[in-house]
């Protein structure tokens, strides 16, 4: 009976800690082991190499969620809304994404939608200047939705190819702040039909199991189009995205690999799997 076949215990003792320490999570690790048990013959289940390759294949399959290539999107303007919890790397990532799009010949406008945090607008402006794009700031007393409305309008006037909207960091547990994000989304649609074309969750790779809850909550509120995983240049492996990809079918679009303007790369599933087992 295939149900009674077990992976060799020595192999489990080696692979399980590796996955847990990569923040894959207990339940997802268990799911991977179960899938491998069902796929391999009992002879293969005693081969460390076969089991490891099978796990790698399962992970690769899970994180390979199809997604459009950002710089090849043809909507004009293409409006991108960037969201996530406090300190994840949203503002910096917008700078990097703007730079990437500019390098490919696109006009980009940034919307300084964080009207709350100290010096948030100044921070985005520096990135906008570095990337060579206009940063739309709000007037005194304007709320986030109003600023991003103006940003989309201004971007359209400028003939921008891409409009990237920054939002204030917020914990998904704060109902009023999540409602604000929904309002921002609605208001961006008012500024331009079909906007936002992309709603990207920025997720810090050092995040533990809370990442799945974050993704679920932001997805429920806004219907995300993808995830950007930041701080991958650190020692955290970002294994939480396996569950996010598998359960929510959200694609990881980019990874942040440092603090410079050029430190953004398209997500490479094979490289991600290699990194887990490095």
């Amino acid at each position, binding site marked *: 009976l295939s149900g009674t076949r077990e992976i060799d215990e020595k192999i489990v003792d080696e692979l399980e800690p590796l996955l847990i320490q990569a923040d894959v999570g207990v339940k997802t690790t268990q799911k991977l082991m179960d899938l491998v048990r069902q796929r391999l013959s009992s002879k293969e289940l005693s081969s460390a190499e076969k089991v490891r390759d099978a796990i790698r294949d399962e992970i690769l399959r899970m994180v390979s969620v199809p997604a459009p290539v950002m710089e090849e999107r043809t909507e004009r303007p293409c409006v991108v809304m960037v969201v996530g*919890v*406090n*300190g994840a790397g949203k503002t910096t990532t917008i700078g990097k994404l703007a730079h990437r799009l500019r390098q490919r010949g696109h006009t980009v406008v940034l919307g300084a939608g964080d009207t709350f945090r*100290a010096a948030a607008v100044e921070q985005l402006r*520096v990135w906008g200047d570095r990337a060579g794009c206009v940063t739309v700031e709000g007037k005194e007393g304007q709320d986030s939705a109003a600023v991003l409305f103006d940003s989309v309008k201004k971007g359209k006037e400028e003939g921008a190819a891409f409009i990237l909207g920054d939002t204030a960091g917020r914990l998904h547990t704060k109902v009023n702040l999540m409602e604000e994000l929904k309002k921002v989304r609605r208001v961006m649609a008012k500024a331009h039909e079909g906007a936002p074309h992309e709603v990207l969750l920025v997720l810090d790779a050092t995040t*533990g199991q809370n990442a799945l809850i974050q993704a679920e909550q932001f997805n429920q509120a806004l219907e995300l189009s993808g995830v950007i995983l930041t*701080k991958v240049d650190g020692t955290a492996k970002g294994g939480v995205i396996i569950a996010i990809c598998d359960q929510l079918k959200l694609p990881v679009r980019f990874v942040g690999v440092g*603090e410079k303007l050029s430190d953004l790369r398209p997500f490479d599933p094979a490289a991600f799997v290699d990194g887990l087992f490095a």
Partner: protein
Amino acid sequence: TVTRGFKNARLKLQGKAELNSELVDEALKDIRVSLLEADVDLGVVKSFMDRVRDKSLGQVVGLEVKDGHGKRVKLSPQDRFNGICHEELEALMGPVDTSITVQKPLTKVMMVGLQGSGKTTTAGKLARWLDGKKLRPLLVAADIYRPAAVDQLRALGDKLQMPVFHEPGLKPPELCEKAMAVARETGRNAVIFDTAGRLAIDEELMRELEDIKARTKPDNIFLVVDSMIGQDAVRTAAEFNRRLDLTGFIMTKLDGDARGGAALSIKEVTGKPIKFLGVGETLDKLEEFRPQGLASRILG
């Protein structure tokens, strides 16, 4: 939740006459899953389980305790196992040490940590805290890298009506050293150094922190840790501690629903205490660490 893990563990032991290794291992399985889902470090979970197992099996289970009426009753294996689990969890939590070392004539506080963990915001919170303790802090903007980092700290200083020191062109070690002189000249008796976020594996930037420490000799070096951090917590905390001999930790963003298991792990692995908790974005949202609060959160 970890509570469910403990519940299941207890049910498995119910009605058993004695604790044997099979029973204990079965009970520990549920607890292990719960602690890992709460982001407790795998190594810490393993040694926790080993200690619980050793104590449970080494236990003479015919123990007696006094019940609610002062009558002597025998402790069931299930109760004894439960007691051992809670003893070991409490050991991971405490002891409590939330003091800030006040130095005369200048109390020095250095904030360090990974990118985005909440150092700048917490520096502002600590300035307000020290002001509440009748100290006169000077905030020092020693992050010369992040765009508008100095503006950010200045804005917090303005809100608190507290001075912020920064001098363009100085490297962070020189800047912090000069800040101490400025503090004395302006009648401030505390300095809080806000440093740039950095990776523990960044050799150059870690050496910068060592340099700041060597020049300013702060009695308070706090690693600011995002409470939603996963298994990387121990790697990071251990390295910062090895380099700087930390005074303690400040866990931030506990107003979210991250279980915060990292708090257990970093305290266990470094032996350094958790001093404060950041529980919101505004400058009043700082609390002294209380183990019961964090324990019940990790226990779900």
